[in-house]
């Protein structure tokens, strides 16, 4: 029986647990976008969109206004206390360390916390967008991704084989199977998906994992 991991929504929910009151947070395209849906009503997180919006709210399903979009092009509402600025100011904010948390999707993460998320060599081309700046600039980088590729190959590797987004930038990896912290000694398995064992996770992870003494299932 294949291992049953978390849904994309549950990965997003787990990441939302790491976002605290007053934090400034940038959500990347794809899975990270979903994190905004799971912020508790008692937690005031300020979402930054690198296209120049600080303080956007939820994604809007109707009343599309093409000037009010997040970095994924989705129409968004604007919260009280928001502000707007150009791309130069937006990336000054990002690169300057004023964004507390960046959540990015990933293709590969290495044991040293290198991230590759912008180019699948077989496909060519590739789009960097704001990912490289977010990876080096945010105070804390959380990578949200599936633990293995569609063909079952590990994404968490000793070394990335894809071109990098940034070196030694990842602080936390949240996958459908595990929560893994990156520290100076490598990877630390902190939490497991419900019903998944540490051994099963290691088997699907090329890089060696150390286990925290109080390893526990993710609280969802």
């Amino acid at each position, binding site marked *: 029986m294949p291992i049953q991991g978390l849904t994309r929504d549950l990965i997003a929910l787990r990441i939302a647990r790491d976002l605290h009151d007053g934090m400034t947070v940038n959500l990347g395209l794809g899975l990270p976008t979903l994190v905004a849906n799971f912020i508790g009503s008692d937690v005031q997180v300020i979402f930054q969109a690198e*296209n*120049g919006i600080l303080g956007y709210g939820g994604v809007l399903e109707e009343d599309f206004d093409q*000037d009010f979009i997040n970095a994924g*092009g989705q129409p968004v509402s604007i919260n009280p206390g928001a502000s707007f600025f*150009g*791309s130069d100011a937006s*990336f000054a904010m990002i*690169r300057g360390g004023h964004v507390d948390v960046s959540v990015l999707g990933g293709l590969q993460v290495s044991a040293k916390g290198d991230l590759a998320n*912008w180019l699948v060599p077989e496909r060519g081309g590739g789009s960097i967008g704001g990912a490289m700046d977010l990876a080096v600039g945010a105070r804390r980088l959380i990578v949200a991704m599936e633990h293995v590729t569609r063909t079952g190959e590990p994404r968490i590797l000793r070394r990335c084989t894809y071109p990098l*987004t940034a070196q030694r930038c990842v602080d936390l990896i949240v996958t459908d199977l595990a929560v893994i912290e990156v520290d100076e000694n490598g990877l630390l398995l902190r939490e497991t998906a419900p019903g998944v064992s540490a051994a099963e996770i290691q088997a699907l992870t090329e890089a060696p994992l150390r286990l925290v003494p109080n390893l526990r299932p993710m609280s969802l």
Partner: protein
Amino acid sequence: MIDKVVQNVDEAVRDIPDNVTIMFGGFVSAGSPTSLILALQRKGVRGITGIANNIGLGDRLDALCEKHQLKKMIASFAIRASGGRQSLFEQQFRAGEVELEVVPQGTLAERIRAAGAGIGGFYTPTGVGTPVEDGKERRTIDGRDYLFEQPLPADYALIKAWRADRMGNLIYRGGSRNFNVPMATAAGFVIAEVDEIVETGDLDPEHVVTPGIYVDRVVVGAHEQIRWFA
């Protein structure tokens, strides 16, 4: 009295020659100078080196590919990560018919700002240890590694704002400032498409985002709906 208003978008782009570098403001649907791009298509300007955040994400820059008006694009986002529907640009890029230089978005914005700000170059931590580093100087400053990046100017900038006065002062809406703001400072000749023109003095000086001295021509564009079906 200074009056930079022209009557229509075709007149606004009338003297743009072939083989120039043109910046295009906008981020996906927000602040894209769509009417000016379509006027550039009608005029048939060729050999364009384009600078924009993105191409082929619902924006009309893709229209410049229909008759191969683009020679090269410098952009942060031009090829979709997912393997879905390809833009005309992506098709032509994969066929080797158009060049693409991919630049990290923040580095693109900062290089454009530097060109407008008289900065000869700067060091950014972005791109260290990635393919972006190829051919660039790496320098360690206070224990951290940076890449040397050079200013990126252009002959023309086509930008989009919400309102202009006759002197070219501009204000924007929401997320439409994006690359329009730095690009307005970095090109030899700047043409702004807006939704509305007001008399000089009608914009509060406290609210002006792009000062009029950066803008050479102002024109009202048609409101074109753009939506990125990601």
